[in-house]
């Protein structure tokens, strides 16, 4: 069994597969390990992605992994005011709902076609270091311990973000920067089949309830609640069940699948590279803190990481300095927005149901040309200047 590679990628999600694909394409000897027995399953995602995000990462749309094209989004206030954003206004930011179990496999298949090896049922359990340099990972493959050596290890282990922390990059989160989620895929619903719906306010403290259509009368119906607002074990599921019971369009449905997960809603990591290690996707905490979306960001970071790693292989240099162009590339693309949306999230948390009702009611009557967090704030400012006092710095 071969145990020495240029690049060992831990985790076969979209960010890991993109890294593996682009590094392998440039000639790197790549191994990608996945702890699960199946890539893309079990699901841990609401599956929404915007088309622009896929485009930026150079991923052409393949209908086989698209569940539903959505026409827009509905933002629902605690008191039931509805603000509709159609796709044109959203500037292609709404997009589509995926079949992640197929999408993730398609991304991994592309990595395989580029020359990457893939091992399933293989968990990383620690990194191997030589001084301040990461030189490999300790892993368990179908229960057998083994050591993998690599020029560079790629931490693509998702929300868990253990690889980075074993190596000495602190990616731990405050409770106020973690959202705990629960989701059912449901059938026999009476919700709109082509709109993504977001319900905000005390129904989901610090987060939101979502309904993402999955074809016909099915949808992903889920909830995210900020961990700092949780008091009892299993409370997040109770919030979701309560909301489903209250909404007659949902209470007629039945579950086909239940999933859970954690999402970071934090600022991005301060360090995404060190000697022999690179962090991509959720493990680098590059999820949008407002929406909790991470697929497009993960793909983009993976693309950059793979390209930079290809150059590092050629130069036979995996030092922090050689990997640093990756850090610069993803920050140029994403960092400003991640910080701004994190600050907006912090403000959002302070708003009462009453204020949220006023904001959504205002937005529903304002014509916003191109929807973005920036334009939404400007629209609110026109009608309710008192509401944006605290948001001023974000505009």
């Amino acid at each position, binding site marked *: 069994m071969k145990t020495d590679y240029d690049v060992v990628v831990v985790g076969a999600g979209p960010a890991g597969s993109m890294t593996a694909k682009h590094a392998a394409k440039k000639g790197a000897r790549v191994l990608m390990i996945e702890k699960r027995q199946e890539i893309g399953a079990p699901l841990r995602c609401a599956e929404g992605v915007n088309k622009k995000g896929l485009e930026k990462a150079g991923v052409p749309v393949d209908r086989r992994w698209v569940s539903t094209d959505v026409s827009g989004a509905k933002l629902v206030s605690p008191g039931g005011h509805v603000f509709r954003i159609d796709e044109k206004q959203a500037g292609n930011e709404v997009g589509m709902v995926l079949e992640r179990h197929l999408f993730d496999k398609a991304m991994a298949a592309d990595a395989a076609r580029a020359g990457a090896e893939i091992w399933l049922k293989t968990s990383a359990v620690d990194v191997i270091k030589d001084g301040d340099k990461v030189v490999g990972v300790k892993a368990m493959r179908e229960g057998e311990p083994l050591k993998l050596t690599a020029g560079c290890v790629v931490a693509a282990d998702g929300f868990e973000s253990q690889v980075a922390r074993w190596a000495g990059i602190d990616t*731990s989160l405050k409770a106020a920067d973690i959202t705990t989620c629960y989701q059912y895929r449901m059938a026999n619903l009476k919700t709109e089949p082509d709109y993504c719906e977001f319900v905000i306010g005390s129904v989901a403290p610090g987060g939101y309830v979502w309904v993402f259509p999955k074809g016909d009368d099915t949808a992903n119906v889920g909830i995210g609640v900020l961990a700092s607002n949780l008091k009892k074990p299993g409370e997040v599921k109770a919030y979701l069940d309560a909301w489903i019971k209250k909404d007659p369009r949902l209470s007629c449905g039945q579950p086909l699948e239940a999933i859970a997960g954690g999402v970071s809603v934090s600022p991005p990591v301060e360090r995404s590279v060190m000697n022999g290690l690179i962090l991509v996707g959720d493990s680098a905490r590059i999820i949008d803190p407002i929406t909790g979306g991470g697929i497009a960001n993960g793909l983009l970071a993976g693309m950059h990481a793979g390209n930079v790693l290809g150059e590092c292989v050629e130069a036979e240099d995996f030092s922090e300095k050689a990997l640093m162009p990756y850090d610069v590339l993803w920050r140029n693309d994403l960092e400003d927005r991640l910080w701004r949306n994190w600050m907006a999230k912090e403000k959002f948390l302070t708003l009462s149901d009453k204020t949220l009702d006023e904001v959504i009611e205002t937005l529903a009557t304002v014509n916003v040309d191109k929807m973005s967090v920036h334009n939404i704030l400007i629209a609110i400012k026109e009608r309710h200047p008192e509401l944006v006092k605290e948001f001023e710095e974000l505009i």
Partner: protein
Amino acid sequence: METDQRNGAHVEVLIMIASTEKCMHCGACVGSCPKNAIFLNEIVLEFNENCNKCGRCVRICPAGALKMEAKK
């Protein structure tokens, strides 16, 4: 009930208990753990010696699968 006699003080010894029936193997506990003290794959959920019984994972677990109890 066992007591920890370090520093001469009687302190309840807490242990973490994971319900394999309830666990959905989602990893929310792993990523939330400030001590990176949890190992999880499709079969196993284990706490290592770095766990300081802060209880954050108990509140965060979406499946309500984790408990912190006094060691009997």
